[in-house]
């Protein structure tokens, strides 16, 4: 089957037309043929009846005087023949043109007639057979009525004659042949015309598809802001147009996010690179003592360490997006993991007089990937230490539910608005006013946490209370 909609539609239309015209032509032909044959038979029968009525019998001789005056039988162009037989089959009279030939004796009863199609001397003929009681010259006058309507007296039974009248159907078949030819030619012409019309209609009908195709072709991957769709789109194609536009919107969004992400990555890498480069260049401008070099080197090392963390985070993000991470589930105790994740930040918290309160019940256990749960908790705790106010408080708690574990980590001193809170999981987003430590925290931590949680089949939300308490809710699936 071809894949061209245009060719398929045209073929379907032609097939439909052929079928329709064939049925129509056949029906018309059959009806006309039957009417013509009926008409022919009627004429043949009336000729036969007139003939039968014209036959007179006088004792034993048949008087055919009237018959001889009937032009049908006397002029050869009528091609009509008759033959009258007695009951025993003896031919008593026949057309002068019949010569030595016989017409078939058609079996029928007195009141009935029978038609038959026959071929004589390779010419088609139609014959009618009937039985009649010929008019007797001494009989009653009403025997002039057609024999079939009169009940013959029993004694006259011997006088019953069989008549066969045959007429050439050449003309009838010529007419039917002409009709066939007319119908066939008309059908062919109509089908040929319908091919043209169908091609034209299909061509026109598919024009919106071509114009949409042209519009789609005009959309370039570096400029996805365009949308398909002018006013002249038919309603049938509307859903396709709408879906395509939806797809374009999603693609544009994804491209823009990707572009912004790349720009952000470039920006976040440029800053530390600029830091390293200018630190090295400035220190190379003159000869310095060892302590100064050492300090420059450790400064560069610190920048490199931060860059390394960032690159690792980026790599992890990319792998999470590409679903290249496999998790190994094991029984974990969140209270313990929180405590071990807290260790690296304890000193900084003490320095800033931030208190830490781990309220997670030690009885709670569930199955998850220990390593990635640690990454999640470390990032969230680091964030909490970073943004808690001096002398503030960090608190963790957890609840075991039927098939999940909910962990909550909160810190005081949050200055974010509710709108800003919605952005904390975006890559490279930092609460602007809290960007004190530029370059040290590049804003990937919570974005990473968000992706890991989702990959683990859980969810994460953030909220800020009026009191300035920032809360992270982790919802982890647990068997």
């Amino acid at each position, binding site marked *: 089957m071809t894949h061209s909609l245009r060719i398929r539609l045209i073929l379907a239309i032609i097939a439909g037309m052929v079928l329709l015209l064939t049925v129509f032509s056949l029906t018309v032909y059959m009806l006309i043929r039957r009417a013509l044959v009926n008409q022919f038979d009627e004429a043949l029968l009336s000729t036969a009846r007139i003939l039968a009525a014209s036959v007179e019998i006088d004792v034993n001789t048949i008087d055919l005087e009237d018959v001889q005056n009937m032009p049908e039988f006397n002029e050869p162009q009528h091609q009509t023949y008759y033959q009258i037989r007695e009951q025993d089959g003896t031919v008593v009279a026949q057309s002068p043109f019949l010569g030595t030939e016989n017409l078939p004796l058609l079996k029928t009863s007195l009141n009935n007639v029978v038609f038959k199609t026959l071929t004589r001397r390779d010419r088609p003929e139609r014959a009618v057979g009937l039985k009649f009681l010929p008019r007797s010259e001494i009989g009653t006058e009403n025997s002039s009525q057609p024999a079939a309507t009169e009940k013959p007296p029993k004694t006259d039974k011997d006088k019953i004659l069989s008549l066969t009248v045959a007429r050439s159907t050449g003309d009838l078949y010529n007419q039917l042949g002409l009709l066939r030819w007319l119908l066939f030619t008309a059908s062919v012409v109509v089908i040929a015309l319908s091919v043209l019309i169908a091609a034209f209609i299909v061509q026109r009908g598919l024009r919106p598809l071509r114009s949409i195709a042209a519009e789609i072709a005009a959309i370039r991957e570096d400029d996805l802001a365009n949308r398909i769709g002018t006013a002249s789109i038919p309603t049938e194609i509307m859903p396709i147009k709408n879906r395509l536009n939806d797809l374009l919107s999603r693609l544009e969004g994804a491209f823009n996010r990707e572009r912004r992400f790349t720009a952000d990555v470039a*920006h976040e890498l440029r800053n530390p690179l600029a830091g390293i480069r200018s630190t090295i260049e400035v220190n190379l401008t003159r000869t310095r003592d060892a302590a100064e070099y050492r300090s420059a080197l450790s400064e560069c090392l610190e920048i490199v360490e931060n860059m390394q963390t960032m690159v690792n985070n980026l790599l992890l993000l990319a792998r999470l997006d590409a679903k290249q991470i496999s998790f190994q589930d094991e029984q974990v105790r969140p209270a313990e993991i929180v405590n071990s994740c807290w260790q690296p930040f304890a000193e900084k918290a003490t320095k800033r007089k931030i208190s830490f309160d781990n309220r997670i019940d030690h009885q709670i256990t569930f199955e998850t990937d220990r390593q990635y749960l640690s990454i999640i908790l470390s990032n969230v705790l680091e964030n909490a230490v970073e943004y808690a106010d001096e002398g503030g408080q960090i608190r963790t708690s957890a609840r075991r539910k039927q098939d999940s574990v909910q962990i909550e980590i909160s810190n005081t001193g949050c200055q974010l608005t509710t709108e800003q809170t919605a952005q904390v999981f975006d890559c490279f987003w930092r609460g602007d006013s809290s960007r004190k430590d530029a370059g040290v925290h590049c804003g990937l931590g919570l974005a990473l946490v968000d992706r890991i949680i989702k990959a683990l089949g859980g969810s994460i939300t953030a909220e800020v209370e009026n009191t300035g308490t920032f809360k992270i809710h982790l919802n982890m699936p647990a068997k």
Partner: protein
Amino acid sequence: MRLLVIEDYRPLQQSLKKGLHEAGFAVDFTGDGEEGLWYALNNDYDVIILDLMLPGIDGLKILKELRAKGRQSHVLILTAKDTLQDRITGLDQGADDYLVKPFEFKELLARVRALLRRSYRRKNPQIKIRDLRVDLTAQRVWRGRKELDLTPREYALLEYLAMRAGEPVSRMDIWEHVYEFKSAASSNVVDVYIGYLRKKIERSGKPLLIHTLRGRGYLLGWQR
């Protein structure tokens, strides 16, 4: 020459501080946008080096505010934003130069020097006053054929006077443009350094170069 650096990335801030200071500039630093704007509005800086992505207030807003308030300081945008549109926007908002991170420190210095020459309407990087020659690029000074050995501070003072050669320069101007904002204020310091400088550049039998104008400050070159 006095510079203001508004840059929030601490390691870069540190190296800029060191490098610019060693290049003989009086430099003020801040990592905060609001503070930077305050500094820029309340001091007459020769060049402001401005990062765009800052906490508190965006770099472009600082620039807009400065220009709206009629400040003439030359501004060099130093940023990681590198697209053409970023550069065009920065320059069109009133910046005088645009440098993308990471950058070569020598290039930053050269661009700052170029902006300084523009500030004082000087095309020639060598300034000649009679037989005194100041090479602004190499930061070297000659009197006649003899090169003079000046300390960075003495050079900075001479450079400022040379940029404004032929016009009276007040002690206040010298204080503001040559000495760092955070060092202790004392009008005496200027006089002391003028004294040091005189000792090194004046020669007996040759015309006097640094003139004291009563109540108006100092003047390098010819007195009009």
